[in-house]
C-alpha cells in the first residue's frame, strides 16, 4: 500500500511538471513562438497525465484529459486551425486539468459544472472542423460530440442512464429482425476455475455469424493488486441480427452461473459500443478482431499498447515508479529529495558555522599565533564551512518561474470576471529565491495581481477615453539587487485615487480630517488594516482583507513592500525580499554593553560624527549633516530601551542606513566589532515578535545577539519623536 501511495505521489509530482509544461507551451503558442515541437510537448504533457491517471483509475481526470488530448491532436495534425479563441480555450482547459489533478490528489474544491462545460467546449472545438473528426476506428460511435479515438484505440464511452433503465427486458420473440444482438459477457473467477475458457466461448459465438467483439479491460487492477486467479476482463459482442438469442444462450449454457451474462438488442443499430456497464468505463480497448487469431487478440486487448510515440498508460506507470531511471538515460539530471532532509542539513550546517567560529575564537583566546599551523588550518576550515553553507543554501534556491506562471492563470480568471482585457508581462522568471520564500509569495502576489486588475486598471471604455490602448498591462518582474530579490507588480492603470483614499481613511477614522499627509503617506494608507477602496465588495479582491494582509505576509518573510503611484500612469508595488531565510550578512556592533547585528543590506556607510555636524532639532531629535544634507540621528541605545540618557555622538559611530522608501537615517551605536555572516534564529519559536528586532543569532562566543530590524527602528523613532518613552509604552501594553 505504501509503495502504491508513493507511486501515486510521484505521479502527482509529475503531473505538476506536466501542467507547467502544458501551460508554458500554450503560452508560447499564444505568443506565436511555438513550433510543431511545442505543440508536441503540449500534447505529450496531457497524454502523460491521462496515461498515469488511467493507471490509477482516476476516471474524471482520464475523461477530461482525453477530450483535451483529442483536440490537441487535431491541432497537431493541422486539422484544426490555431486561433486566439482556441488557445484561450486551451489555456482554460489547462486550468481545468490542473483543478482536476488537484482534486484527484487532495480532494480540493472542484467546479464540476465548469469542467463539464470545458469538456463540451473542447469536444465542440474538435468537431469544429468537419474534416477534423479523424476516426481511425471504423466502429467509433457516431454520437454528436463524441471525441474521436486516438491511435491507442482509446475511446471514452458515452452512455445514458436512459439506455439502462428505459430498455425493456428483451426476449427472443421481440427481437426486430434488423437490430443487432448484443451480448455482454463477464466471466467470474469460478468460470476459469472450472477449466472453462472465455476464448472458446467467444469462438463459439463467432461461429453463429458475423460478430464484433470488444474487450473491456477497465477493471484490470495494477500488477501489485492483481489476483492471478481473478477475472477482470469482460466482453461486449455485437452479433448479426440474424442470430437467435436462444442459440447464444445455448453456448453459455454450462457457464451461465459462473458469469454475468446480458443479452439484448442495441437501441441504435449502427452503434457497436453501447455497453451496459455499471459505471462509465475509462479504458476500453476495442478491437474488431474477427479475422485475427484469438491468441493474439488476448494479449493485444489486455494492454492497449502502441509501439510508437508517446506514453501509454502502462509506460507512464513504469515511469512513475522509476523516475530515477530516466536520469540514466541522460535526459534528467535532477533528483527529488524530501524537503525535511534538506532543512535538516541546513540546520546542521548552521550549527557547524557557529561551532567553527566559536573554535576560532577559542584559539585566538588561547594566544596561538596568527601564522601557526593551527590558525592556518582554522582559516581553511572557515572557507570550507562557508562553501558548504553556500552550497546547501543553493539547494533550496528555486527560480520564481512557477509562481509567475501561476499568476498568468490568476490574470486570466480575474480578467474574465471583471470584463477587462489584460496582458501579463513577466520578466526575470529565472531569478532564484529560497523555496520557502517562493511558496509564501503565492498568496500575496495573487492578491496584488487581483488588486492591480480589479482596482488598478480602468474599465476598457475609460481606458479608451483616456487615450490608452484598451488592453491593460500588468507587469511582474523579478531581479536581484544587493543581496535581495526585488519583485515588482505594476499596472498601467489610473493610479491611486488619493482624494478617495484620504476620504475613506478619514471616514474610517484612520486619520484626522485635517491631517497634513504627503502623497506617499496617503498611498501607504492602503496598507492599513481594514482599508478597502472598492465601494462594493467584489468577488475578485476578497472581502475586507486587503493590502494589510499582503504587507503582513511580506513582512513575515523578512521582506518590505512599498508603493509608488502616478495619477493616470499606474501603480507600482515593490517587494524586497531576502534570498534566504536562514543566513544574513551583518555588521556586529555594541550598544550599551549589548552586542547587536545590523543587516549589511541596509547599511550605506559608517562614519565618526564630528561635533559641528550634529545639530539638535526640536526638543529630542537630532540630525547629522552629511555632505550638505541633514539626516535624522537615531540613538539605538535609547530606541531599544537599553538606556535613558542620550548617547554622546562624539564617542559613537554613526551607521548610515537606507530604509524601505529609500530615505536615509543614521543609527548611533557605541562601536563596531566587525562584519560576519550570521545564522538567523527565530525569536518567535519560543517567545514572540519583539519590536525593533528582526530575529536573533548566536555569535562566536555562544551568546545570543539580536538582529536589528532597521526599518522598524527608523519608523518607530519617527513616530516616537515627541512622545513618551517607547519602552514605557511597551511595558504598559504587556
Amino acid at each position, binding site marked *: 500500500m505504501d509503495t502504491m501511495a508513493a507511486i501515486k505521489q510521484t505521479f502527482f509530482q509529475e503531473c505538476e511538471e506536466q501542467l507547467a509544461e502544458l501551460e508554458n507551451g500554450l503560452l508560447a503558442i499564444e505568443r506565436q513562438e511555438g513550433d510543431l515541437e511545442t505543440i508536441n510537448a503540449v500534447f505529450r504533457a496531457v497524454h502523460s497525465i491521462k496515461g498515469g491517471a488511467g493507471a490509477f483509475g482516476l476516471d474524471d481526470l482520464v475523461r477530461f484529459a482525453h477530450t483535451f488530448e483529442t483536440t490537441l491532436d487535431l491541432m497537431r495534425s493541422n486539422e484544426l486551425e490555431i486561433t486566439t479563441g482556441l488557445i484561450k480555450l486551451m489555456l482554460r482547459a489547462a486550468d481545468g486539468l490542473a483543478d482536476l489533478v488537484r482534486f484527484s490528489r487532495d480532494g480540493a474544491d472542484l467546479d464540476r459544472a465548469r469542467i463539464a462545460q470545458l469538456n463540451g467546449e473542447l469536444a465542440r472545438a474538435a468537431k469544429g472542423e468537419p474534416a477534423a473528426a479523424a476516426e481511425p476506428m471504423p466502429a467509433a460511435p457516431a454520437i454528436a460530440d463524441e471525441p474521436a479515438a486516438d491511435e491507442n484505440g482509446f475511446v471514452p464511452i458515452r452512455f445514458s442512464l436512459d439506455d439502462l433503465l428505459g430498455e425493456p427486458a428483451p426476449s427472443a420473440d421481440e427481437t426486430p429482425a434488423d437490430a443487432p444482438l448484443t451480448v455482454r459477457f463477464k466471466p467470474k473467477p469460478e468460470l476459469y476455475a472450472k477449466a472453462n475458457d472465455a476464448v472458446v466461448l467467444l469462438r463459439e459465438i463467432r461461429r453463429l455469424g458475423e460478430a464484433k467483439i470488444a474487450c473491456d479491460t477497465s477493471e484490470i487492477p495494477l500488477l501489485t493488486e492483481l489476483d492471478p486467479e481473478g477475472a477482470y476482463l469482460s466482453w461486449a459482442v455485437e452479433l448479426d441480427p440474424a442470430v437467435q438469442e436462444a442459440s447464444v444462450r445455448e453456448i453459455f449454457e454450462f457457464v451461465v452461473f459462473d458469469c454475468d451474462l446480458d443479452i439484448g438488442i442495441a437501441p441504435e443499430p449502427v452503434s457497436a459500443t453501447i455497453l451496459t456497464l455499471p459505471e462509465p468505463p475509462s479504458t476500453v480497448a476495442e478491437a474488431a478482431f474477427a479475422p485475427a487469431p484469438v491468441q493474439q487478440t488476448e494479449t493485444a486487448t489486455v494492454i492497449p499498447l502502441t509501439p510508437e510515440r508517446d506514453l501509454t498508460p502502462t509506460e507512464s506507470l513504469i515511469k512513475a515508479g522509476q523516475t530515477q531511471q530516466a536520469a540514466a538515460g541522460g535526459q534528467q539530471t535532477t533528483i527529488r529529495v524530501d524537503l525535511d532532509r534538506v532543512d535538516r542539513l541546513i*540546520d546542521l550546517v*548552521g*550549527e557547524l558555522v*557557529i561551532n567553527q567560529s566559536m573554535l576560532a575564537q577559542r584559539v585566538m583566546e588561547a594566544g596561538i599565533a596568527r601564522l601557526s599551523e593551527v590558525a592556518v588550518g582554522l582559516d581553511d576550515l572557515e572557507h570550507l564551512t562557508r562553501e558548504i553553507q553556500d552550497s546547501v543554501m543553493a539547494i533550496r534556491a528555486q527560480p520564481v518561474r512557477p509562481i509567475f506562471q501561476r499568476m498568468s492563470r490568476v490574470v486570466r480568471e480575474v480578467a474574465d470576471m471583471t470584463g477587462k482585457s489584460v496582458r501579463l508581462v513577466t520578466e526575470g522568471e529565472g531569478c532564484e529565491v529560497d523555496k520557502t520564500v517562493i511558496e509564501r509569495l503565492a498568496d500575496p502576489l495573487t492578491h496584488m495581481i487581483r488588486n492591480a486588475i480589479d482596482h488598478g486598471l480602468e474599465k476598457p471604455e475609460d481606458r479608451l477615453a483616456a487615450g490608452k490602448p484598451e488592453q491593460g498591462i500588468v507587469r511582474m518582474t523579478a531581479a536581484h539587487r544587493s543581496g535581495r530579490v526585488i519583485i515588482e507588480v505594476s499596472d498601467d492603470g489610473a493610479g491611486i485615487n488619493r482624494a478617495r483614499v484620504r476620504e475613506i481613511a478619514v471616514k474610517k477614522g484612520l486619520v484626522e480630517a485635517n491631517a497634513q499627509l504627503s502623497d506617499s503617506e496617503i498611498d501607504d494608507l492602503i496598507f*492599513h488594516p481594514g482599508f478597502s477602496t472598492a465601494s462594493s465588495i467584489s468577488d475578485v479582491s476578497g472581502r475586507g482583507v486587503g493590502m494589510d494582509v499582503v504587507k503582513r505576509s511580506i513582512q513575515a518573510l523578512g521582506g518590505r513592500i512599498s508603493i509608488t503611484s502616478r495619477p493616470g500612469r499606474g501603480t507600482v508595488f515593490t517587494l524586497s525580499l531576502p534570498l534566504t531565510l536562514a543566513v544574513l550578512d551583518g555588521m556586529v556592533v555594541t550598544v550599551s554593553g*549589548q*552586542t547587536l547585528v545590523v543587516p549589511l543590506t541596509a547599511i550605506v556607510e559608517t562614519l565618526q560624527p564630528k561635533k559641528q555636524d550634529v545639530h539638535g532639532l526640536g526638543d529630542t531629535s537630532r540630525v547629522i549633516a552629511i555632505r550638505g544634507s541633514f539626516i535624522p540621528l537615531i540613538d539605538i541605545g535609547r*530606541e*531599544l*530601551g*537599553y538606556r535613558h540618557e542620550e548617547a554622546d555622538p562624539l564617542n559613537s559611530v554613526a551607521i548610515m542606513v537606507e530604509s524601505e522608501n529609500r530615505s536615509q537615517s543614521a543609527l548611533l551605536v557605541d562601536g563596531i566589532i566587525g562584519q560576519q555572516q550570521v545564522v538567523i*534564529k*527565530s*525569536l*518567535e*519559536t*519560543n*517567545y*514572540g*515578535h*519583539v*519590536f*525593533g*528586532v528582526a530575529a*536573533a543569532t*548566536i555569535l562566536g562566543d*555562544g*551568546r*545570543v*545577539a*539580536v538582529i536589528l530590524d532597521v526599518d*522598524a527602528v527608523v*519608523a*518607530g523613532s519617527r*513616530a*516616537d519623536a515627541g512622545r513618551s518613552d*517607547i*519602552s514605557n509604552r*511597551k*511595558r504598559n*501594553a*504587556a
Partner: protein
Amino acid sequence: MMHVSEKDMTANSELIAFRLGGQEFCVDIMSVRDIRGWTQTTPLPHSPEYVKGVINLRGSVLPVIDLAARLGFRPTEPTARHVIIVTQVNNQSVGLLVEAVSDILTINAGAIQPTPDVASDLARLFMRGVLAIEGRMISLISLDCVLPNSTESAGTVH
C-alpha cells in the same frame, strides 16, 4: 502538550519543587526538559521586566523568565547559584529563573488543595493549588501564561 493540566493531576504524578522569594513552588516534572546553571542572558528590547532575556540552548534561542518577578515578587538578582529550569509550555521552550531546585515529589491528585483565597491576583493566575508536605506548603504552578500575553508585535507604530 506536556504542560500541567487538571487531567494529569488525577493520577500519581511527579513534581519538581523549587524555591523562590522564600516560598516553595512546584511544576509537573513532565514539562521540565532541562535544569541548568544561570548564564548571562541577552536582554530583549521593550520586553516586560520579568523577561530576563534570551540564552543559547544548544543552538536555539531560549527566553528566560524571572519567575519571581512574574509572580509579583521582587525581581531576582541572579547569581551563579541560581538555576534555570527549562520547560516546555504550549510547544514553546521557556527557561524559568529560580533560586534553587529543592525536591522531587510524588503525589496523587487528592493531595492538591484549592488555592487559599488570600493569594494575590497575580499569584492566583498561575497557581493550580497548594500541597501540604511534611509541614511545608508548596504551590503548584501552571506555566500556561508565563510568557507575555501578546506574542504579536506591539510595535506597528504609525
